[in-house]
């Protein structure tokens, strides 16, 4: 069996906490689609290996450069089914960093009749992504912001 890369600090419990925070904000009414429901119904003790084998999970590939060096979990949101959770791994220890991929960076010509509504969709997606990431940071899920804050705190403490 091929070993799962970059999982030193990534645990099933951490993923489940991240999923729950995400879904509370992405589906505030609780109406999660059937094909995304399995991310919401995970028991607390579900193992990392089990979670990574669920449908809707994209695993890092052995080739493909940095773009492939992350896990993606397609959880969607109320109005946009393509939104994903990204887990990247940074630094020498491969620390996980959670972020939201709005998955909406498409080139839409400015003169297209879809341009204005698509920009509105992107803005709405970005606002939700920001709220989810802020909530993760507050709830102790590692994000880019929490990682930078931690670096600052550690270096200030040394001085």
């Amino acid at each position, binding site marked *: 069996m091929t070993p799962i890369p970059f999982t030193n600090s990534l645990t099933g419990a951490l993923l489940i906490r991240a999923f729950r925070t995400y879904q509370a904000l992405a589906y505030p009414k609780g109406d999660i689609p059937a094909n995304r429901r399995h991310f919401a119904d995970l028991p607390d003790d579900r193992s990392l290996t089990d979670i990574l084998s669920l449908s809707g999970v994209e695993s890092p590939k052995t080739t493909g*450069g940095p*773009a492939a060096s992350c896990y993606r979990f397609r959880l969607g949101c109320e109005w946009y089914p393509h939104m994903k959770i990204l887990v990247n791994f*940074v630094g020498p220890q491969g620390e996980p*960093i959670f972020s939201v991929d709005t998955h909406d960076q498409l080139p839409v010509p400015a003169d297209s009749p879809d341009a204005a509504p698509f920009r509105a969709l992107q803005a709405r997606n970005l606002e939700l992504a920001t709220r989810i990431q802020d909530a993760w940071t507050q709830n102790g899920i590692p994000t880019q*912001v929490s990682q*930078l804050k931690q*670096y*600052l705190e550690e*270096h200030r403490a040394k001085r």
Partner: protein
Amino acid sequence: MSARTILVVDDEPLIGELVAEIFELHGYESRRVETGSDALQMASGWHPHAIILDVMLPDIDGFEVCRRIRASEPSQGPGILMLTGMPLPADRQRGFQAGADRYLTKPFSAPDLVSEIESLIGEYESPVECRCRRMSVLSLSGLRDDPQPLAEMLCDLVRVTPLTTSEIEQFGNAVIELASACAHASDPTSDIESWRLICRVFRDRLESSFEAAHVPVVRTGHPLVDLHDRTMETLPPSLSALGDSLVRGEFPSLSIHRHF
């Protein structure tokens, strides 16, 4: 010694603020903006040593910002690190073609970012190395569209003292790149002035540097031109002759194997 200066351009205010704070902690003077137009204004008015540049900005994207900064200051501009969530090799290539010195993807680790900037600033403080590197970046990218920035940079480079053998070799390679571009350009006459300028400045520079001494060996390995070591009596006129032959319009068929 004055503080190193860094401009952080990121439309995510909190990320920009934290990154700026990190560099303040490392002794830098930092400033922060959130749009491409503000970045351009700050870059031209403040002249930071380095710029950390996000790509997805609300007005002008980071690639275009980078291009405009390089166009305004091709040889002496700031070190530019692109920091972006666009991880594909094609995006990275786009960044370098726009003139970025480094390309780091989000999310990133703070130590990696600090290390990249320290290295970039080190190069900034070593102008010859910095210019050689930019020269090769430019010669590989926008040259066919506009050889003038490369020509100016080459001239700038050879005005820097002292010129080492490896710098001359890099210069030679860049000249050859330019020759190739001229040969392939749809309108090669547009590059004549660039050629003339380069040849003249390089010849003058060699004459003032080496006088009667032997010019260092310059082996480019390029099929177009191979410069062997010769005394000053022969090299500059020969180089000039090469330039002149190209200027005369012979360069569309550049199957020249010149051995000076």
